[in-house]
């Protein structure tokens, strides 16, 4: 029976969007943990399965539904032989809410809720489309529960950070409700995390693009400055900067902080330099820009005061922030996806996030120009939008207590170049026609 199921899963898992080992042969699938959450028809089991691929071994999580007959509406989630991916079955997912509300233990699975959180267990779920590595269930209009698919032992940084910031009353996070955990390799490991669903919010990226498109509409009227155009985004960029500074302050208060001494800063500059030199070999288009980047790294190496490091967002860009009716709310405190947990939780300069957001403004202003017939014509408008909103973001960040002058300016410049160098590598591999976006970062005269 188990063997048969493992066989079915081996044939099925390779086609799942969230499967991380796509393109490599699957040598074997084994069930590591199997907990029955509901018996009968339909039944629900929680599985942790092991997937072996060319010596590598990954764990994945699965909600396994069982039904005598699969109704048409669940056909697309059918695994075979009456087994299906129960994340898509709202008749069963309510069990997760109930278990979290009760704080129940099911075998090794521990369902928990945030202290004082009331969970409405009647909400029905819908799987949010188009997710890369996890599966998110939206319950009614109330909650979004992220089911981590590939499991890495340890507490998920997002759970850790969001619950800590919630305890401090931060307005810039989505309220946490509950989570599911298990011990894996002796470590407390997060399986799922449920937060408030922001019903009437949009992400910063789509808001920024609406503004950029509006400005492009004025391409034939260069006499109208970006500040006078209807879709101006700078007030929002300013608010976002302020929210970012406040979250950084909250993170510094909620978690340990440390400093990096000048010798370590020098080593950091060396690492960045090495990466740049390697990238120039890989991407010849970068040649000619190296001087300005090296100069920035030289100045970084000259910093003779310690710099403060703390917990940060780690993967900060316009797609990670949502504008609600009241505030900017920051999502996905998970760090760079795909990196080991220790690295994702490592202390870093908050300017890493600032640099990420500045790069994101650049992307927002320019990515519509790529493959655009009038791209060259619109370029000055893009530069104008980017400069205006970057400045507004930094002004907001500073007004709310963030630091971006003196040594901090040097560090920020170096981090932004480092990010752009990384992007050069990424674009040259994946979207060569977008290469001009990161390259333009080196010719900016601000």
């Amino acid at each position, binding site marked *: 029976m188990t063997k048969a199921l493992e066989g079915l899963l081996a044939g099925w898992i390779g086609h799942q969007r969230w499967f991380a080992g796509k393109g490599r042969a699957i040598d074997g699938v084994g069930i590591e943990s199997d907990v029955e959450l509901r018996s009968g028809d339909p039944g629900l089991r929680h599985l942790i399965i092991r997937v072996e691929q060319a010596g590598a071994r990954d764990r994945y999580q699965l909600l396994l539904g069982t039904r005598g007959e699969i*109704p048409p*509406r669940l056909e697309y989630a059918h695994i075979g032989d009456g087994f299906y991916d129960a994340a898509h079955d709202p008749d069963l997912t309510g069990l997760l809410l109930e278990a979290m509300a009760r704080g129940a233990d099911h075998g090794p699975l521990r369902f928990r809720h945030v202290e004082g959180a009331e969970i409405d267990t009647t909400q*029905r779920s*819908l799987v949010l*489309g188009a997710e890369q590595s996890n599966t998110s269930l939206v319950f*009614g*209009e109330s909650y979004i529960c992220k089911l981590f698919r590939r499991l890495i032992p340890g507490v998920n940084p997002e759970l850790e950070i969001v619950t800590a910031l919630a305890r401090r009353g931060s307005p810039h996070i989505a309220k946490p409700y509950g989570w599911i955990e298990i011990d894996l390799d002796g470590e407390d490991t997060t399986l799922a995390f449920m937060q408030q669903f922001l*019903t*009437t*919010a*949009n992400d910063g990226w*789509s*808001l920024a693009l*609406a*503004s950029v*498109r*509006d400005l492009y*509409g004025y391409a034939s009227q260069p006499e109208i400055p970006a*500040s*006078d155009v*209807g*879709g*101006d985004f700078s*007030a*929002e960029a300013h608010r976002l900067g302020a929210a970012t500074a406040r979250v950084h302050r909250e993170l510094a208060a909620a978690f340990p902080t440390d400093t990096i001494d000048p010798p370590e800063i020098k080593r950091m500059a060396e690492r960045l330099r090495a990466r740049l030199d390697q990238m120039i070999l890989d991407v010849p288009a970068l040649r000619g820009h190296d001087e300005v980047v090296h100069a920035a790294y030289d100045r970084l190496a000259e910093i003779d005061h310690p710099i403060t490091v703390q917990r940060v967002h780690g993967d900060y860009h316009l797609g990670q922030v949502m*504008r609600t*009716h*009241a505030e900017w709310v920051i999502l996905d405190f998970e760090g760079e996806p795909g990196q080991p947990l220790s690295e994702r939780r490592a202390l870093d300069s908050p300017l890493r996030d600032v640099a990420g957001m500045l790069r994101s403004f650049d992307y927002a202003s320019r990515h519509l120009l790529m493959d655009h017939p009038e791209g060259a014509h619109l370029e000055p408008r893009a530069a104008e939008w980017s400069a205006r909103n970057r400045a507004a973001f930094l002004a907001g960040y500073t007004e709310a207590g963030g630091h971006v002058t003196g040594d901090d300016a040097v560090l920020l410049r170096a981090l932004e170049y480092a990010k752009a160098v990384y992007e050069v590598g990424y674009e040259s591999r994946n979207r060569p026609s977008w290469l001009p976006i990161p390259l333009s970062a080196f010719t900016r005269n601000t």
Partner: protein
Amino acid sequence: MSSASQPVPNTFTHEKPRDPHWYKRAVFYEVLIRGFADSNGDGTGDIRGLIDRLDYLQWLGVDCLWLLPLYESPLRDGGYDISDYTKILPDFGDLGDFIRLVDEAHKRGMRVIADLVMNHTSDQHPWFQASRHDPEGPYGDFYVWSDTDEKYKDARIIFVDTESSNWTYDPVRGQYYWHRFFHHQPDLNYENPAVQEAMLEVLRFWLDLGIDGFRLDAVPYLFEKEGTNCENLPETHAYLKRVRAEVERLYPDRVLLAEANQWPADVVDYFGDPVTGGDECHMAFHFPLMPRIFMAVRRESRYPISEILAQTPKIPENCQWGIFLRNHDELTLEMVTDEERDYMYSEYAKDPRMRANVGIRRRLAPLLENDRNQIELFTALLLSLPGSPVLYYGDEIGMGDNIWLGDRDGVRTPMQWTPDRNAGFSDCDPGRLYLPVIMDPIYGYQAINVEAQQKNTGSLLHWTRRMIEIRKRHPVFGLGEFTELNSSNPSVLAFVRELGADRVLCVNNLSRFPQPVELDLRRFEGATPVECMGGVPFPPIGELPYLLTLPGHGFYWFTLSPTSATEES
């Protein structure tokens, strides 16, 4: 009086109170008597002229006329400086004309409310004259007098362009008098019980003549108290409650509409106690919404509207907001932040002459650069956002303004009825008109007038009439809950209005570019959206996000038919 629980007849009289909540569904129309129609050829509109045009307003779908002050006045502030509360301004006619107006309106199923200024009078009012000449007499204490101009320093000056203080010295009485508006408009002293009684007497006078209610001008300022900003004081609310109780007792079915240019959180206090369903004013204007509609469309972002509606508190059950796009005053910018105000100025008032006090004096069409799509979008928002819509005369045909006229006269020019002399407003010599008609090539009366637009079914006038008709077919627009929907596109404002099984879905594209939007409509799974203008059914709502595409500045209104019972096993 007969009982209030009778069935609703098609016509009504005041002896049969029949619809205590009529104002929650009504479409209001603001009329400037002076500017609407001139019956006697003296160049100034009058009540008889208005009576002649009631058929037009009935045809348009108007439920209630709101008249600007029609009382005797030296007219130094557009009639808001009343010198006799119980007389009609002779330019407009007499009390007989007024009674006939109310009668004729009622015959057509329309109601009539009028502006009433309770806070102050003209300095020509006999009360003030008596007060300044005889401090010991019966009117000596009718106004707020002081030996110094030092009191109530925390009260802001409202007309900053013309007034430097809220106190003015009166050489006759040898004291300063208090005025929140112009110096020729002394504030009445509501601490004096005789003033409170006198104002109730004024209200009863007009209610006895059949008027359906009042728009109470400048209500936040009735009382003063040291150490406060002298706005929204508890004493003011207590007096308004008294006024309401008096109206309720003797004149059911009437409405009090508060003009309180304040934040919604402060304005809700003018509705009174929520436990009673509201025991102060039935209605109040929602001021901050209007500039934000303009801002949202200019920014192509729903947030300015979403934010202000999210910040708007719930109002008591029997109350209603009054909402508007434009009125006889400037586009008020007091209720936006400084940053937003700068933005509004730069966007909508590039010529400094367009600014007045803290605001912009333009009509709707010129504010929107005469763009029909935008005018339609704005009108659709006005008719679908929570509240009762108040149209401003002339905006239904897209009238223009004249920024070269002084103060706020630019938006108060004669109504344009025909392409004939004086726009059909008056048959006097053109030079005698109270204000010149608009004559520019785009908005002039030869291009924009009622007659031409009535003949052309594709006109803005016909379109507006049709939209009003649709709104009136669905009481949910006036009575329903408002819920904003999760929209994937920040340029698209989507919301439902709900009243039991009656549900309307409104989707508005605030961008000038076509936009797609995915809406989370799971709550209505199984329902079929039916477009309100043409009755075309759209694909039924399923579990997945509902995809719509909208043209630039486009909008849809859908009714959501009840969920069909045939879904799923």
